[in-house]
């Protein structure tokens, strides 16, 4: 295999993070533990979303829609029925994926900005349904009292559960982006027309990517509803979509672990800056402008440039 160099892919970040995360409950304050849980949940959503944006080149403006489906389905099953926790938990992402087959079927019919607008429209539809269907979702009053079983209740136990799901999700996504399917997605990102001429049904692959991505967005939503114990329309509105997109941009969408790095920075910045000023979005906006203009590889791309300048990290 003489021409297959070992590509550097931040495995070391994963290793370091995993060890740190495992030890965290023993050394950190509960406040920090919940912060890290949030980071892990956000990074599952962002990595799932990045399969679409970074790997397939499809910029969805509505990832919050799928996130909402996962969160509300799990929440509703736990609050309104006596479904066992794990069943309720896994129903969220499965439902998100199923609905996305329909949504995706419409969306992949259009490309670029029209695709983006369609996804935005569907996310808004989902948001409106959730907000108006008072009897089921609680509307603006939110869905409160989401109970998790005793084996994972409490910040520390839920943290361990989140950590497990986080490891499994990232492992699956890692396998997917390095599989033949993942390669084809990257081909579609680079040149959809050319891909069609090497016997690839581009729309079908895009739909598959959309559904897989939705599954992980839904999974993150489910995790969040159990973590938070309640869920409100404000948690799943268009701002949530921008959060997820920004996390990918921030961390670097052309690197697998980019969104993880992004989630870290995003949540820490949020809490850190919020201590000093309420205008944290101002600082974030400035950072994003700099990144988009100067370092489209995001933070992970910058790191990579510093450590191995030969590999080009951004377009």
């Amino acid at each position: 295999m003489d021409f297959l160099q070992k590509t550097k892919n931040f495995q070391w970040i994963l290793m370091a993070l995993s060890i740190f995360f495992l030890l965290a409950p023993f050394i950190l304050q509960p406040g920090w533990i919940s912060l890290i849980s949030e980071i892990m949940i956000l990074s599952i959503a962002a990595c799932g979303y990045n399969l679409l944006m970074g790997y397939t080149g499809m910029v969805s403006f509505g990832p919050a829609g799928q996130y909402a489906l996962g969160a509300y389905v799990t929440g509703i099953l736990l609050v309104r029925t006596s479904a066992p926790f794990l069943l309720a938990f896994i129903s969220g992402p499965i439902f998100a994926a199923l609905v996305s087959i329909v949504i995706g079927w419409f969306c992949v019919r259009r490309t670029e900005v029209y695709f983006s607008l369609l996804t935005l429209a569907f996310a808004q539809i989902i948001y409106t349904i959730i907000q108006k269907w008072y009897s089921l979702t609680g509307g603006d009053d939110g869905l409160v009292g989401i109970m998790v079983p005793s084996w994972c209740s409490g910040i520390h136990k839920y943290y361990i559960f989140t950590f497990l799901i986080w490891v499994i999700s990232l492992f699956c996504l890692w396998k997917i982006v390095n599989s033949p399917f993942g390669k084809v997605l990257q081909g579609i990102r680079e040149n959809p027309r050319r891909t069609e001429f090497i016997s690839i049904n581009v729309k079908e692959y895009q739909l598959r990517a959309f559904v897989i991505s939705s599954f992980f967005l839904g999974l993150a939503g489910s995790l969040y509803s159990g973590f938070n114990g309640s869920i409100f329309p404000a948690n799943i509105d268009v701002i949530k979509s921008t959060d997820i997109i920004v996390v990918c941009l921030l961390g670097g969408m052309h690197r697998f672990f980019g969104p993880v790095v992004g989630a870290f920075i995003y949540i820490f910045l949020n809490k850190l800056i919020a201590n000093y000023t309420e205008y944290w979005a101002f600082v974030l906006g400035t950072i994003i402008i700099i990144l988009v203009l100067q370092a489209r590889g995001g933070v992970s791309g910058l790191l990579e440039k510093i450590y191995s300048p030969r590999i080009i990290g951004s377009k």
Partner: protein
Amino acid sequence: MILEIKSLSKAFGGIKAVDNVSLRVDQGELSSIIGPNGAGKTTLFNIITGHIAPDSGQIIFKGQDITGLPPYVISSLGIARSFQKVNIFSMLRVFENIQVALLSAHGKGKELFSNAKTLFYRETEEILEIIGLKGYANELAGSLSHGDQKRLEVGIALGGKPQLLLLDEPTAGMSPEDTLDFTEFIRSLAKEKGISILFVEHDMNVVFSISDKIRVMASGQIISEGSPDEIRKDKRVQSIYFSGIKEIKESRPAINVYQEYQSKKINRRSSFLSVKEIDTFYGLSHILFKVSLEVSEGEIVCLLGRNGVGKTTTLRSIMGLVPPKKGRIEFLGENIVGKPAFKIARMGIGFVPENRLIFPDLTVRENLEIAIKDSPKGNNWNIEKVYQIFPILAERQNQKGGTLSGGEQQMLTIARTLMGNPQLMLLDEPSEGLAPIIVNTLYDQLISLKQEGMPILLSEQNFAFALSLSDKAYILEKGKICWSGESSVLKENPAILKQYLSI
């Protein structure tokens, strides 16, 4: 017989791009399609590969009717193609480009959890060996030279395990050395690997040296078919390429043009535009090699050459749209290299692009009004004066730009450029896609522009048109000026044309 096309037709808005074409390709055959620009060659490829659906006719591949099937189905049956403009996966590595094609050809594209990294390693290596890019396996495809990207383009096509390979201008934009190499490579694919190949090419050396069979297309139809020797002797083929020249010799004796030129020469002042040894690149592709040319006051200068030799790039370099890396461009004595396009336009160079770019939803008059611009050297042009030269535009002044015919749009584009009061006009293939009668009108109009003292630099593939119009000519070949001189000389010696422009 591997491919059979039966009376295939396709029209775009009234223009028949492919008109009742029938052809057969035999197993293992290496054949080519030649023909002037706009003859319908690429459209034919696009129809065969399923990118465009035909209006009528049938395509049969290995006994199966594939008419109207989508490209991904047709390519899975064994037809692969390469593109005129490089069409690769730029941000993937070279070996990944080929690996993706192989994965897909083996039906493994949907596997979610196996590791793709080492999959089909041997086959990938084999193709890299064939296309001679093994040493670049780990480079990003986008960083390869233009010639190597063309090779990779074919490599991707080979990854699909094709039985029929369609190559659209495989050597366009390659250096002469690369072309030689690549020609041999194509020949070996057909002769050693047994792949049937159908290719479109403008380089006649390539076409005549390797084709088993040549087909000549003109205005959507196949007008001749045969071995290289038969085609070389075919009078009809020669007339397609030279039809205009005789005609113009009759209508406008060369000697007049020459005298005109001589008289102009006497009261000629210093050069208006002078391009000195410019080198221009698109990314890493080296397009222009030390191109130099001069336009003097009141002169019409033409740039001749086949498709993809750098004519448009020369005009775009002058305009600052692709700034040259080396060399100088002096306009009225000032170096304009490195200035942004809008500043160069303000200095008085008007560019009329090939694709016209009129505003379809504005009326003709609005299209003209929008372009009014004061010139530092005084305003010579206004709408009335423009209407005098292009009376048809006055008639159509309240019609929307998008409803004009191709010829009228071309006139509108030139007129619009005039509204900016340019000192010099660059016209990119003004006669392209126009019917002969319109070309004649355009000819008269450009002559009257010349009488107004407007210097013009135009690029053309319609040699007859360009030569009768211009005072001076430059012939471009693979990015280099290979001949320059008075147009009358070229017109009187078709042999020179033949030598540089082939056929």
